[in-house]
């Protein structure tokens, strides 16, 4: 049931990732994406039914009974953040309050 990746798939991914592919880059990407399917096929050799996905390696480290480590959230208090002027200085285009960008909708 190994579905093959199509050019339509590549174009959809390009859209999602906000990347354009030129000419033979599409060919190469098709090959790379198909290679991913080989990886997935390998992983499917393993029976993982009932195995919880491990998103955070550090979950194995948190000490049981230590509430602080079990929940990594803090009290909801407003604290100073970055200096806005400093941040806006990095903007390619801005009016110091907002980032300026080309129009969103093309008509």
């Amino acid at each position, binding site marked *: 049931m190994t579905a093959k*990746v199509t050019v339509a*798939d590549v174009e*959809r*991914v*390009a859209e*999602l*990732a*906000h*990347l*354009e592919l030129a000419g033979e880059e599409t060919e190469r*990407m098709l090959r*790379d*994406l198909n290679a*991913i399917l*080989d*990886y*997935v096929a*390998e*992983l*499917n*050799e*393993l029976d*993982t039914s009932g*195995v*919880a*996905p*491990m*998103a*955070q*390696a*550090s979950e*194995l*480290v*948190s*000490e049981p009974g*230590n509430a*602080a*480590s079990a929940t*990594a*959230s*803090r009290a909801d208090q407003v604290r100073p953040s*970055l*200096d806005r002027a*400093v*941040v806006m*200085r*990095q*903007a*390619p*285009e801005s009016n110091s309050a907002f*980032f300026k*960008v*080309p*129009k*969103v*909708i*093309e008509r």
Partner: protein
Amino acid sequence: MPGEIKTTETFVEKPKTLAELRAEISTGRTKATDLAASYYERIAKKNPRLNVYLSLTKERALAQAERIDALAAKGDPLPPLAGIPVGIKDVLVMQGAPATAGSKILEGYRPPYDATAVAKLEAAGAVLLGKINCDEFAMGSSNENSAYGPVRNPVDTERVPGGSSGGSAAAVAANLAVATLGSDTGGSIRQPASFCGVVGVLPTYGRVSRYGLIAFASSLDRVGPFAASVRDAATMLGAIAGHDPKDATSSQAPVEDYAAESDNPVKEPGKAGLRIGVPSEYFAEGLDPEVRAAIEKGIAALEAAGCTVKAVSLPHTKYAVPAYYLVATAEASANLARFDGVRYGYRSPHSATLSDMYSHSRDEAFGVEVKRRIFLGTYALSAGYYDAYYLKAQQVRRLLAEEFLRAFAEVDAIVTPTSPFPAFKIGEKTGDPVAMYLADIYTVTASLAGICGVTVPCGATNAGLPVGMQILARQLGESTAFRVARAVEQSLS
């Protein structure tokens, strides 16, 4: 000495130890300002060829050095890294200094804050010399993917230093810094340390704050040090480790005195020696025979020092590679979505629409390898595939982590080669796909499992190319890894 390498040997120079420099600075025999100046001189000489530093932070460095000299002159107690010249991989931010992540998309960017690890080093007295070259967004294993040119291995400048923290490893090997910081997602500290003949540390995930590390894969990224000796690497880790409220994944576990722990022999009187596990999966086809020989010598030395060595089995090892590629690329695609030309970095000129601006900026300023990984990761996470690809990989990840846990019930440390081959020539990414695959296996397993490790120089090939031994320990087991590494280091001195 086995095999002469041509005159490129002059690039290799061993830094003095932290202890030695501390003695010189605290007694006033050496001034921190003079020391920093001497490093900048050496950088001026060697950097044109090695391409280690992308930018220098002289003002900040000299201001710090002056502060240290003033403390020393008054006879005040000095912080642990007082006056020590340190280099920072360009994926870690230093306020006001360039942070390119080896990419054109961040050319000109000046971060408005310090990474926590950077701030901690400075609070410990370190003199931060500058920002160091690396593979773009830490993606690569040869430092050939930098948008600012490759770094050259000081041992043989026709060869790669490894990657992605190639510059950080090379800096220590060439004494362009006494120690450096790098990052490791799938091997990016360990492998270059091995290629350049220096010590590299993979801290447990969460041991060192990731605040201020430009993210590649958030569940895999670690910040860690390079140094010329095990004790100095341990000292560096002690300076940067610890809980950080700004990093929700950072560990609350107390920071041990790693340097002192590294002094403890692997066999203490009246106690059994440390148990070393050797996994057969890492000694398979594709391992360079000279590398194997060097590692076997290292293992024999550990036995002679009082360790018991036994075979362990990690049967799920091979699944680590596909799991890693799915997890790392998926997380990278999310983390690199922020580079869109809106708020910082490169913005493509003359885009008619916002959407064009996004794709043109990313197209024009991301390198080929980065684009490739974003693509793969986006695919793995897209609707219809997320469960089958990303989630499946995370399930396999748990199996790998549990496998290590079971192994660490039987042994205290697991020893493997850090890389199946020594440094290859620039432009000639080793042609053997089996060897390349094995190379991935060696390092990504520990990355996925969240465990810690140290790579220590363990001899060289007949041509004089460094070989590294990887010592893996359980999560938060850095002290054990340092003890074993120290024993290997001592056996070779």
